């Protein structure tokens, strides 16, 4: 081996996307998530009607009470598609998370993500006030599940969400769009918009006999600053996903815990 030959023992830490597939996989992943969100809600609403637990007009609202629990099915479906894609492309799940980093660097990164997300929190709080005043936003107010299901929504769902959601959008969809479009900023903008748009599909609420479209718009607007911040941080950290996943787990797990303990009134 000559001096110029790169060592095979030391992989180059290059901030390049790992996924090798085409944009078809990205479309499949986003479509899977949206179809699963809608399918699971409609299925649960149908079951509630069949069981006589809810009237037809109220069944979607009743199903929405469980959205923090059945979100696990959507994330499991997402993980299934991710596993299928990475097996087909012969890459590892770890490679989707970006270059390696020491545990202390990841921990420091998590703190950085939490701090950098503060403006999004303040912005979102003002959006909440503009839409709902001092009332609890509907997606938190509607949650009403038994203790065991609440515990599941705190302990399991946020973990599954982090293994699936940011990996899908930032680890799989974004690199493929970057390669197809050739402009990272445009690909990132599309990913943020798609990611935000997905939130319009859960939970589906009914107001005055119709789908509450104002709530769907609120969902998209309120999550947009978070998703834009995390996508920008993904680049700032050299395409490392673990700090973002860690911070999101704290956010989402904390929210689920606050709802489960009825701290959100």
């Amino acid at each position, binding site marked *: 081996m000559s001096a110029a030959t790169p060592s095979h023992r030391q992989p180059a830490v290059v901030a390049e996307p790992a996924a090798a597939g085409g944009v078809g996989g990205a479309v499949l992943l986003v479509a899977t998530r949206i179809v699963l969100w809608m399918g699971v809600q409609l299925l649960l609403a149908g079951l509630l009607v069949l069981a006589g637990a809810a009237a037809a007009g109220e069944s979607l609202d009743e199903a929405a009470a469980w959205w923090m629990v059945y979100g696990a099915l959507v994330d499991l479906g997402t993980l299934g598609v991710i596993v299928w894609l990475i097996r087909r492309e012969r890459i590892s799940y770890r490679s989707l998370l970006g270059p390696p980093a020491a545990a202390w660097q990841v921990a420091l990164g998590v703190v950085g993500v939490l701090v950098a997300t503060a*403006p999004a929190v303040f912005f979102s709080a003002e959006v909440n006030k503009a839409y709902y005043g001092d009332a609890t936003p509907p997606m938190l107010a509607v949650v009403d599940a038994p203790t065991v299901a609440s515990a599941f929504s705190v302990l399991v769902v946020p973990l599954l969400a982090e293994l699936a959601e940011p990996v899908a959008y930032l680890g799989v969809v974004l690199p493929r769009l970057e390669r197809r479009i050739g402009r990272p900023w445009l690909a990132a903008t599309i990913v943020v918009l798609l990611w935000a748009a997905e939130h319009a599909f859960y939970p589906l609420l009914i107001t005055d006999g119709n789908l509450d479209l104002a709530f769907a718009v609120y969902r998209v607007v309120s999550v947009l600053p978070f998703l834009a911040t995390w996508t920008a941080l993904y680049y700032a950290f050299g395409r490392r996903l673990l700090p973002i996943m860690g911070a999101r787990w704290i956010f989402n797990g904390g929210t689920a815990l606050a709802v489960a303990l009825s701290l959100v009134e």
Partner: protein
Amino acid sequence: MDSRILYRVTYLAAAMSLGHHIDHAIRHNAVGWPLTDEVNAFTMSLVIYPIIITGLLLYRAGRVGPGFWALVSGGGAAFVSAVHFGPSAVEPPEMMLDGYDSPVLGWLAFTWLAVFVTVLAITSLYETRVWWQQRQVRRADRPATGAGIER
């Protein structure tokens, strides 16, 4: 590559800072000298422009690196957050949202502020990472000295 990105994010942050100061001037609330006689947070915040210009000159001359910019960006994010979002905020979001006759302009100004602070925070984290990486490279390149040297 890092240097080019660093210049770009510095120009972006400077442009967003200028936009925020213009917003203050148009709303004419929470402003100080030179627009009024009072010296306050607005006046102090103007010091960022000489810092940026001096920093750019020193960076070009190789006298300061990403660590300097991480401190400037992080300090800026902390200052602007404390003034606008902190518990003792002198200009809370309501002052911006209600600062214009048109609610759309108020939301535009508030959105600009949120993006500005986010840009500063993310820029600071990016610059910290670049600073750390450069430090690691310098350490690795440094020749061994001291006990290992044989006469």
